[in-house]
């Protein structure tokens, strides 16, 4: 097998990162159709720009960045319905809230700017480090650190203090 063969290289990348990209997209879309379109468009972009795709785990961050832009285009109504991924469309389901209490956190997240919200979600939902999140959103690490600090402070302000304390104590108990 020639590791430089474009198809082999793409397949290896796809197998390695598909689940991460599907999770990223499903958590941010409202319908299976939108999710399937965004997943298809993200990987299609990767195929078309395979030479620009970095190797190793950097590829995952690159794909997150592509998916992020694809979803932004989708929200602006600029995306077209993909002719691909018919079967995937039927398989996918929409992500559901983890429990009723987390609805409060998500409501607070919705009050943040899209950029702040995405940064918090990349770290909290995708498990990225601030440096990795900086790569995805195309900012410097310093800028992201500052922005992250402010975003967390704003989120705390939007949360009801009693709820915040209760949730933190629940999470703390859960860890012990």
């Amino acid at each position, binding site marked *: 097998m020639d590791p430089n*063969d*474009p*198809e082999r290289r*793409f*397949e290896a990348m796809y*197998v390695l990162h*598909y*689940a*991460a990209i*599907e*999770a990223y997209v*499903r*958590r941010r879309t409202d319908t299976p159709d939108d999710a399937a379109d965004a*997943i298809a468009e*993200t*990987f*299609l*972009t990767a*195929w*078309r*720009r*395979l*030479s*620009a795709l*970095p190797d190793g785990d950097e590829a995952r961050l*690159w794909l997150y960045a*592509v*998916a992020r832009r694809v979803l932004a*285009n989708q929200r602006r109504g600029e995306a077209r319905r993909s002719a*691909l*991924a*018919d*079967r*995937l*469309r039927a*398989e996918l*389901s929409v*992500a*559901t*809230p*983890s429990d009723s209490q*987390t609805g409060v*956190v*998500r409501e607070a*997240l919705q009050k943040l700017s899209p950029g702040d919200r995405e940064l*918090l*979600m990349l*770290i*909290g*939902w995708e*498990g990225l480090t601030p440096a990795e999140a900086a790569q995805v959103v*195309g900012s410097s690490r310093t800028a992201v650190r500052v922005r992250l*600090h402010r975003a*967390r*402070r704003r*989120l*705390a302000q939007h949360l009801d203090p009693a709820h915040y304390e209760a*949730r*933190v104590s629940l*999470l703390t108990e859960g860890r012990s």
Partner: protein
Amino acid sequence: MSDIKRLVASSAPVLDPPPALTAGARELLTEITALPVPRRPHRRLLLPLLAGLTAVATLVSWLLSSVIGGPADASALDIHRSGGFYDVTVKQLFAEPQQYQKELRHRGLPIELRVVPVSPSAVGMVFPFEKSYNGLSEEQISRRNDLIQPITRPGSCFIECTIGIRIPVGLREQARIELGRPGRPGEKLIGFGRLDNPGEPLQCVPFVNHRVGEVRTLLAQRRLSVVRYAIPLKGSRTSVPDSWYVQDGWLVETDKVLLVAASTPVAQTAPTPHDCRRT
């Protein structure tokens, strides 16, 4: 603040079923890799190749004439500053790869230049690849003064010819550009112009929407074989019925061709290459 981080993490929606490489995901992989665009350069740059370039011969002769007719200068690249960019154009198409690298390094430009095999009509073309392009649209890229931009030469090519790149002054991240060179026998080409482009095996011979059997005969007369048929959105095969229609095609090795074929003709065809219309 780590409490906030945990709170956000706990609010992640539940994915049921969890993400997995299902049959649908596998099918998507097949659909995508069946599309004949592996290692495709930036779409705006490729458009002239796919739509029917003008003669890269025009470009090559322009590039070469600048060497032959120009001042005696051994440099392979022309690099000069223009506003917030360094404009880099190729002066010598067949210089040693190390020579390009040496000249870029000498100017402190973090560019890796690779010379790659391409089909005849793409020889001499320059393809920039930049990680930061990500999912940006072509228009968004053209508005960014922090990204490498293609230099095109309007007017003489069918749509545009890419003859160099503009590198933002102060660019730190290592970037890569590729320069097309002729392929060697048995070598896989990684950039292609359409089969009827000037310089390509079916130069100025109409083949789009012709039957597969007919096109295969044309290719056999030129000692070319079809290595694979790409069926739009349905994967690829090593053979298809002779009665199917050819929708597109490229030279993928010096003696092998990839055809896009389907049971129906394609509705819109790319325009005739400029140089073919002149003759």
